Each structure stands twice: as C-alpha cells, then as structure tokens.
C-alpha cells in the first residue's frame, strides 16, 4: 500500500497526551509509522484539527435495526440533517441511501465516515440471530466493526450461576462469543428478558427471575467473573435494570457498587454501564420526575472501576430499539406508538418503538439535560464515552449537534431558553458552566474507547496504530467552540478527510472510496475438559428446547470476510 504523509496536522491525541500540536503523520501499509520515504503522497492538513477516527462504542446499526427500518418506511424520506439523511440516489461510487434514524446499511457506512468515524460497535447481538448481524455488517462499507453478544437472560447462563458452575459458565461464554463472533459480553436488564418471556419483568437487582432461581445481581456477578476469568478485552457491558423508570438512579448506583469487588483481569474497567441517561432518573413517577444525574455523577467521581456512556437525547423523531422487551411494550402503550417485539428462545428479548423527543415535553427536556449533566459533572473524561445509543436517543448523524452542547454553554442556554419552568425545575444543567474542549471531546469520542475495549491500535495516532484518521475543517487555535459552535458543528458534520487503514475514504465531506472494513471478534480459549462438559449441557438444550440444530447455530466463516480474531486465554 502506498505511503501517505499528512503535513501540518493540528493533532489532538489524548492517548499520547498530544493537545492540538502541529505535526506530521506518516502512514504506510495502512498503519501509522514513524517515517515515510520521499515517494509518499502528501496531504496538507493546513493546520486543521486532526484526531484518530471516531469510535462509536455503542450503536444499534446492524441486526435489530432492521425491525426499525421495516416498521418505519416513513423514516426513509426524513431529511432533517441535509447531507447526512434522506433519500440519496446512487452514484458511481456509492449505493443508494435512505433514512434518518434507521438508514440502510450503505448509508450507515458512508455517514459515519463523513463524520470522521471509522469503527463502530453493535450494541447487542442475540446469539441465535448473530448471523443476521454479520450479514448486515458485510453491507456496511468502510467501517471496522465489532459487536456485543447478549448473555443476561440466557437459560444456560442462569442455570450455571444458579448451580454454581463458574468454569462451565466461562466455557459457555467463550463458546457463545465464538458462535456469534462477538467481541464482548452484553447484559441487558439482567434476568428481565426471561421474565418478559411471560410478559413480566424484574423490579431490581434482588428480584429473582421466575423459574430460574437467580437474581439479576447474581447474573451480573456470575458473568463478570466469567468475563474476567476469560480475560476478555472488554468488561461486561451493562444496561441496568429499571431503565426508563423514575427513581432508577438508585438501581444504577447499586449496580455500579456491586462491581466494586470485581477485579479486572486486564488493564481496563471492571464494568461499563451503558446509556446511563436512561438510568439516571429521580422522582417516583412521571409527575415528580427529575434528574438523578448529580447522584450518579457523584458516585462515578468517587469510583475508579467503571466507565459509562451517555445515551444523549436529540430532539426530534427517534427510534428506540433494545433487548429490554418490557420497556418497549410500556413505551408503546404509553405513547400510543407502533410496537415490535422479538423474543429469542432461551436467550433474550427485544423491542422496537418509534417516538419523538420534544423540547416542549418537560420529561424529554429533562432527559436531554441529564445526558449532558452526566458528561459535564463527571470530572474525568476518560470515564465517559459519548453516545446517543443511536437511534434510541437519536440518530448518530446528530453527533456534531450534540458536541456543540458539550462544548458551548451558550448553545446549551439557547436550547434551555425554550424549556418550560417545570422542566427547568427538574434539571441542574442551567447551573453548569463547564465546556469541553477539543481534547476532552477527543477522549470521549475515540481515545477512551481504545482502553475501554483494549484495542491499542484504535483511537489514537501512535506508531503501529491503524491509520484511521479524521481531519476536520477547523483551526483549533483560531476557533472558540464556546461561541463559534456553528463552525464546530459544520466541521464535524463533514470531515475534510477521513482515512481508513491509510486510504482516503472521505474528502471534503464526500465519499471517495468504499473499502470493506474488518470485523473484530474474540476467541477465548478454555481447557478441553471444561469445554466438553459444557458442550454436554448445551447439547441437551439443543436437543430438547432450541428449534435449530447445534451444528447450524454457529456463524460460519463466510459471513466474516475480513475477520480479526482476538485470542485470549482463560484462567482455570
């Protein structure tokens, strides 16, 4: 592969502690290197802000999103973010694109790349339906991908925990990751997915799962133990119980506290809590609903064992999609919206419901504020991953809009000025002056992911890292993001350059090339004896309860055309 020399880049790379320093970046064979020859193609960054490619650590972009597309054909023509949404005819270089919250696969690849993002992590892969996720991955151009496999309401998992079989549990997790080609362990409303199989839910960490005699707390601890025993690159990734319920901040803190005793087996967090905005509610009902962010932030500030992501709300239409089946049914009934549900035998639940976040609704206004409060009240940006839980809080194409909220108190004040008194009384955001700078923004959108997912070659511009680079048309020394937030939004909406594995894929906001990205998955090794014992148990499950044969369950090689297999060694 050719060599590239990026000159005069104003580099912001928190992993290396570089804060808007002008420097050159050398690329060869898709990697960043120390130097290149005189034959290198030169890109003059002209002092523009340069970061590693963005890394969306939690997005619903392959699998369940297809239900969202299916039930919302009206999303196809929505175009609230011109250039990043709506129906776009095919071109010589690009396939046809549709959609806003639930774009087609090609649009997802192109639009993330235009934002300067180069890696995405699908938030939830159901094991039985994993092949579908990978089929969609194949049709998402440019981006590197990975996914988190669902284990939190899985029969075999719950039985092993109930029967105190931690070694077989770890073997099952390893097998499940291989079967689904997943990267990490996802837990959604632990135990609730099984309760939802009967139309019920679990009410908290110590509410036992009907018929399985385990509590959500035990599920969390059991899976955490297995996760660390297998030395997986990511910690368990948890969507807490009681999502969306006023008062749930207490469950969230309780969950976080539970993990204080978990010792990570790698240099990373013991727990990642996802879309905390939806789990940081105080009050006892929608009538006295108010922000719970200060309490959560307070705990997080004093803790050093966890990371979390925001789940920031964007006003306008959104589509909720989650394995939290009961939440979706409740949403649909309360909001009189369409309701899709797909429970997966022996494994988990899911639901999809479109909705609308309005600044005139005091609840939505407070939800919007909570995400920002979390980001700004938590002192250490390395604990914070930026997400909108796309498209639950809103589509990822709104990230640049959301960045302006984080970086500009003035912009926030503008939005807040449209809120009712009732909304203002329920939030603390108006009193927060803090504004993130480009460095902190980089931490939340690429650098911290490098550590959170144990991917040293991503999220930074060190020699040896992947040459995934975003150059934005903004001169950091000459722009004040606090007042010139419109410029910031424009720049981040349309990268001057996006490079993927050393290839220019976006130039001046237009797609140049559409290479295929890689898919990262984890192959955790377990001792044969443990594996064999575990296989006997799951053989029985397939024989008696599943409706597919075990031999047809595993995702086959041909669904992963560019695999990157990460091996780990379990400790038994």
């Amino acid at each position, binding site marked *: 592969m050719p060599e590239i020399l990026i000159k005069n880049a104003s580099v912001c790379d928190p992993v290396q502690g570089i804060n808007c320093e002008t420097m050159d970046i050398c690329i060869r064979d898709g990697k960043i290197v120390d130097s290149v020859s005189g034959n290198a193609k030169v890109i003059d960054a002209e002092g523009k802000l340069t970061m590693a490619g963005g890394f969306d650590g939690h997005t619903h972009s392959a699998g369940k999103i297809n239900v969202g597309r*299916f039930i919302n054909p009206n999303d196809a023509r929505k175009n609230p973010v011109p250039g990043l949404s709506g129906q776009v005819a095919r071109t010589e270089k690009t396939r046809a694109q549709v959609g806003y919250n639930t774009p087609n696969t090609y649009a997802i690849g192109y639009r993330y790349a235009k934002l300067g993002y180069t890696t995405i992590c699908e938030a939830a892969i159901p094991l039985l339906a994993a092949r579908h996720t990978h089929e969609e991955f194949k049709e998402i151009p440019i981006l590197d991908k990975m996914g988190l496999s669902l284990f939190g309401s899985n029969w075999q998992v719950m039985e092993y925990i109930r029967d105190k079989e931690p070694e077989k549990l770890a073997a099952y997790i390893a097998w499940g990751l291989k079967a689904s080609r997943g990267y990490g362990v996802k837990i959604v409303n632990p135990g609730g997915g099984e309760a939802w199989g009967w139309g019920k839910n679990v009410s908290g960490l110590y509410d036992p799962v009907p018929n399985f005699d385990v509590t959500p707390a035990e599920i969390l601890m059991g899976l955490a133990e297995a996760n660390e025993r297998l030395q997986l690159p990511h910690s368990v990734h948890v969507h807490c119980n009681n999502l969306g319920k006023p008062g749930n901040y207490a469950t969230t803190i309780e969950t976080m506290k539970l993990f204080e005793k978990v010792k990570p087996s790698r240099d990373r967090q013991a727990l990642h809590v996802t879309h905390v905005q939806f789990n940081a509610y105080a009050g006892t009902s929608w009538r006295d609903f108010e922000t719970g962010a200060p309490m959560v932030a307070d705990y997080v500030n004093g803790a050093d064992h966890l990371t979390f992501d925001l789940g920031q709300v964007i006003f306008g239409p959104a589509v909720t999609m989650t394995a939290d089946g009961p939440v979706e049914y409740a949403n649909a009934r309360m909001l009189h919206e369409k309701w899709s549900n797909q429970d997966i*035998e022996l494994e988990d639940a899911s639901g999809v419901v479109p909705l609308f976040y309005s600044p005139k609704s005091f609840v939505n206004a407070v939800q919007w504020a909570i995400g920002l409060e979390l980001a700004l009240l938590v002192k250490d940006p390395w604990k914070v991953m930026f997400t909108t839980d796309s498209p639950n809080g809103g589509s990822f194409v709104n990230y640049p809009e959301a960045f302006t909220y984080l970086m500009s108190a003035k912009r926030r004040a503008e939005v807040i000025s449209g809120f009712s008194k009732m909304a203002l009384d329920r939030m603390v955001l108006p009193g927060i002056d803090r504004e993130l700078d480009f460095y902190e923004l980089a931490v939340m959108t690429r650098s911290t992911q490098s550590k959170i997912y144990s991917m040293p070659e991503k999220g930074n511009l060190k020699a040896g890292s992947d040459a995934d680079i975003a150059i934005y048309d903004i001169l950091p020394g000459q722009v004040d993001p606090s007042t010139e937030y419109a410029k910031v939004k424009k720049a981040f909406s349309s990268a001057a350059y996006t490079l993927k594995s050393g290839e220019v894929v976006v130039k001046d906001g237009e797609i140049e090339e559409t290479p295929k990205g890689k898919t990262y998955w984890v192959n955790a090794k377990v001792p044969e004896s443990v594996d064999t014992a575990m296989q006997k148990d799951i053989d029985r499950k397939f024989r008696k309860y599943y409706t597919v044969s075990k031999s047809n369950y595993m995702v086959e090689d041909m669904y992963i055309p560019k695999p990157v297999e990460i091996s780990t060694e379990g400790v038994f």
Partner: protein
Amino acid sequence: MPVIKDAVCSLCGSLCDDITVTVEDNKITKIENACILGHSKFVGMFEHDRIETPMIRKDGELVPVSYEEAIEAAAKILVNSRRTLSYGWCSTSCEAISGAIQLAEETGSVIDSTANVCHGPSALAAQEKGSPSASLGEIKNRADVIVFWGCNPVHAHPRHMSRYSSFSKGFFTEKGRKGRTMVVIDVRKTDTAKIADKYVEIEQGSDLLLVTALRSIVNGHEDVVPETVAGVPRAEVLELAETLKNAKFVCIFFGMGVTQSRSKYKNGDAVSSLISDLNQHTKAVMIGMRGHYNVTGFGQVATWETGFPMAIDFARGYPYYNPGETGANDLLVREEPDAAIIAAADPGAHFPQKAVRHLARIPVIQIDPYANPTTEIADVVIPSAVVGIEAEGTAYRMDAISLRMKKLIDTKFKTDVEIVKDLTAKVRELKRGA
C-alpha cells in the same frame, strides 16, 4: 456414500434444519425427517424435467444458446429498458437476492418479491402497528394457547405443529399437545380445524370484524359487541376472548386467510393491535406463516439494503416504496414495464390474466431451474442451480431466524448468485460502451 446431517430444507417457511440426506452418485437417494413437501423437493427434483440449457426465443421458438449469448441478450434487454420489473427472488438465497437488488438499483428497475401475492399485507400491517413476535422456540417452550387463523399448517407447513407449535414439547410445555388449547379460525373446516380443540367458523371477509370484537371485549367494552359478529354468536366470541385472556402464553399464527381476504393488511394490522391489547392480560405474540422458504429472507435483505421489504422502485436512483403503486401486479396491470426479469417464481401461473397478458407482450428474462408457465412467455431463459441442494446460501425462517442452506450435490448449472453477477457485469460493460 456421504450422509449429510442437519441439512436445511428449502421448501416452506418452516425451514426445518434437521434433515438427513444420503447422497449416492451425486443424487439424493434417501431423506430422513422431511415432510411430504420437503421430500418432493429433495428427491422429486431428480424426477422433474430441468431446463437443460440457456435459450433465446428466435422466431417464436426457444432455441438453445450458450450461456454467454443468453447473458448478453438479457443484458441488452435491461440496458434498453426504461422500466424493468424484476420479480420473484423468494426461492433463492439471500446472497442472490442481494445481487438482484444491486442489479435493480443499477438499472433503475422495480424489484418485488412473491410477497406481492402472499404476505405483502403483513408488511403493511407491521408498518401500521409494528410486529409483536417471537422466535418459534418461544412457542415450543411456553405457548399453552395456539391459534391458527386463516392458515392450514397440516397441508402448507406439515411439520410446523410437531416442531414448533401444537404438538411440540418444550421446557415449560412437557405435556405437549395435552397441555395446550389449539384454536382454528377459518372460513371452512380445514384439516387443521379438524384436529383443533376449538374451531371458530367465520363468514368470508369478516376477519376484521371478529378481531375488532375481540379487541373490544379484551379492552373491557363488550357492551358494543352485537349478537353476531362475523357470523359467530356473541357467546362464542366472548368465550374465545376468555380463552385468549386466560392463557399463560398465546400465539396467533396467521396466513393467507388473514392477509388476502377482504380488507387485507388491515386484518393483520388489527391482529397486531389485538396482540398488544392481550399483553395487558397475558403474554401474546403473532407469527406469519410464510410460504416460500426465503420470502422472509427477501424482506430482510431488501430492508437492510434499501430500507423497504418489497415493491422497491429504483427509477429515480434511490429506493421508493409504495405497494399499490410499486408492486409487481400494480405495474403489470397498468402495463407499465417494458421488460421483466423473473427469477425463482412463476407469475405465469399465479398472476391475474391481465398481468400475464402484458408479460407476454414484453421481453422477459427467466432464471429458474425448472420450466413453468412463465417459460412459455420468456424470451431469454437461463437455467440455474437448485438452491438448498445444488447451491448453498442463507435463508430466513418465518420467524426471521436465519440458517445456512448447504450444497448437497454438484451441478453443472450456474447458481443464481453467479448468473446475477455475470448479468450485472454485462450490463455495466454495455453501459460503458454506449
């Protein structure tokens, strides 16, 4: 003598994957576990006449030609067309469907699946109300009340009841059939109705009335339900509602009786609403009894690639969707297409007369292993490998779970994937030359 286990049957939407296939001298000589329909596919294929070679119609007669000639002739038709209808694509793999969609996009064609005459209305229903569903194993392991509405699995999905529904035994359903109540709602007493615990006979075209009545009762408004609904006495309707409400887990399986009778998609739409209402009292889901083994797959692939599950019009370069305007029959009845490509389907046999007459007037490209009535009106015919037997690929079961179909025997025929790929390449070449 290879014996292949856990092969996937590629006939109906049940997509059974426990088939054992014995292959001798590149022929399937023995099949275990398949039903009569599956059997007819696996073993029957060796008894049917295949289309042996590519053909082009010259002076009214189909004449054998080389594959390259056929591809060129087909590509020319597509390149010269202003409005091609690409139809079928359901008895083939997801990979072939993906190629077909790309071809349609590049030629500005309309592409539609056999859902047009089948479960298309289910998509429309889901677009109104959503799709409250579950994987089939949830039914096997939990359901104690099973309703078959407007469908006849005894004949159309023979192993459905033993593998997934009425007769299946699961974790919470060890008693199997004995622990279940099976209800059939239909306009006549089908063979499935004959083995039901409760058979509710309704008047033709009155499904929406019965669903609405059930909703009213479930929602506490039984006072608005008249003495007779859909030809069913009020007492029986109340009893049916009670059965559903008092279930631990009810699944409504629905078929053409619901999707193709009067008020079509509104029936499925209303059933969706009924399911949502029932979930206030019990656990309830619905699943469509998809006919072809990969019509669900077409819906899935089309949705992730274009945003829409069927009836996709690429004329303006981006996907546009509007059943009633962009469906295969909509176009044919209005005599819009000036060319057609028909694959893995038989509109010649299944479409209305007016539509078939128009097909006969325009250049038609057919891709299929077997001759059928559509062959009579085709102008270019390209034989293909039988997917699921001679060609591997992905298919989606009626509950949207995917499986990989195996290649069981070798074949001289090109696969749909290859044919579409070659056709697309030729179209590009001709366009560049123009």
